């Protein structure tokens, strides 16, 4: 793997950390999402010629960057207790950014996977990328499908949904780890 691709992988990894973490001082996010998407956008710009997936992912990163700007001013996540009172537009915004984010992540990994064919990524890592993205997609699909049920379901079901979103978080961490592992391969 070329040195430039290695640094791109590292930067993609760091870029994905920002939207993942939501530590707030008052209403201010210490890891603002838009910084993450900016890092991702710049990293993808380097490798955009290598695969069409990166080009699309770059566009999505740009859209996400713009969409995440309002989060500087207001809190973008919805608490379970506030779920029903949150206006539909807010739900649409949260779900749309989530969809675009997952889509962007998947495109990045599909692209890396394709490049992996031509380079010497160990099969173990390739398999990890493949199975992680698939699991990521499947879990997110379930989450998308059952998210509206939070309106009517018992609290126990809501807890299951929260657990699944924790699981998605875990997989995203694994994917970020894959990026850093890729960056170490010579």
């Amino acid at each position, binding site marked *: 793997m070329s040195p430039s691709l290695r640094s791109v992988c590292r930067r993609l990894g760091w870029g994905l950390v920002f939207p993942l973490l939501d530590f707030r001082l008052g209403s201010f996010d210490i890891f603002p999402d838009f910084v993450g998407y900016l890092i991702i956008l710049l990293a993808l710009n380097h490798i955009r010629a290598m695969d069409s997936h990166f080009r699309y992912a770059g566009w999505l990163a740009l859209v996400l960057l713009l969409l995440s700007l309002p989060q500087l001013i207001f809190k973008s996540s919805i608490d379970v207790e506030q779920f*029903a*009172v949150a206006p*539909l537009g807010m739900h649409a915004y949260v779900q749309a950014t989530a969809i675009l984010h997952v889509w962007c992540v998947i495109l990045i990994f599909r692209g890396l*996977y394709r490049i*992996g*064919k031509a380079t010497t990524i160990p*099969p173990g890592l*390739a*398999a990890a990328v*493949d199975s992680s993205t698939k699991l990521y997609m499947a879990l997110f*699909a379930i989450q*998308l*499908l*059952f*998210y*509206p*049920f939070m*309106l*009517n379901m*018992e609290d126990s079901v809501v807890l299951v949904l929260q657990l699944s979103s924790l699981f998605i978080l875990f997989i995203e961490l694994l994917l970020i780890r894959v990026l850093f592992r890729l960056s170490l391969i010579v």
Partner: protein
Amino acid sequence: MGPALRGKTSVGSYIISSKVVNWVNERGREALYINSDSRPEKKKKYILPIFLLIVTASWAGNIWYYYSMQLDKPVFLKHYITLNGNQDDWIELSFLENRRIGKKVTGIELEKLPQLRFEIHPPNNDFKYQVMRKAYGFWNGEENPPMEKEPLIITEATVYYSEGPPEKVPIGEIHVMWERSEGLLESISSGGSSEGTGQYTVIAEEAITLEQVDYSFSDRLNSKFEFSVVSPNGPVTEMPIQLDAGDTLIFDYAWKIPSDTATAFEVYRTNFLLTYTTGDGEIIHDRIPISFNHYLSENQVNWFVRSGGELP
């Protein structure tokens, strides 16, 4: 076979086995890459639109159901209460309100008892879509300005909302009466169960003749309330009966409120109405409280909302 030879074969088999592993790895890698792209494009094309359609349907269905389970506005239960103006007394008004959306009750006034100040308590009985809230009004008819001591029946309350103008809403019937307790029956014990049964025991302070036992709101309650009176001589089947000083009377009662009708949304605070004569011929009207535990289940509330959210 000598030791040297054995060594040679083991090295050889190691070389062969590592080659095999490499070969297997490579086939595996190819299989992985091939597999990931092997799904026919045609099939793939439909997955996303169908999935998005299902997600949209999930949203539409859930939103529709959520709104179908909301009340148009807060609903007051029907209260059948007697309130005594001659002593410190209070009333409790219960109402159902949507848990999250829609207008909330912010204030209650009774036009005929303007000095009654209501305190609205936070919800204490939660359902999935609604909350039950209670407003307490404390009152003494002899406070300033003193009221004209006339019986009153209050059927409406003026309710103020978090949004929109105040409205007059039916709250049942609150009977205001002015009575002084000069009874000759002293309470010994009382008890009630969550199943709706209760007991009240009194003791006669002097010899009396019990002429009549009735209960308030008997016209409404005829089939929903049953009671029996037990004297020292056994169950009372006929009136009048004689009681000596020190005799006990037990009032056994049971509420029979059907759970699947609007009656379940009625709240009663009633009394046994006793009429007895003393040894010197004086007629006394006395009251004995009847306890009433009001409980609504999630299913009853959901049934009520689904059937239109209005009490007859």
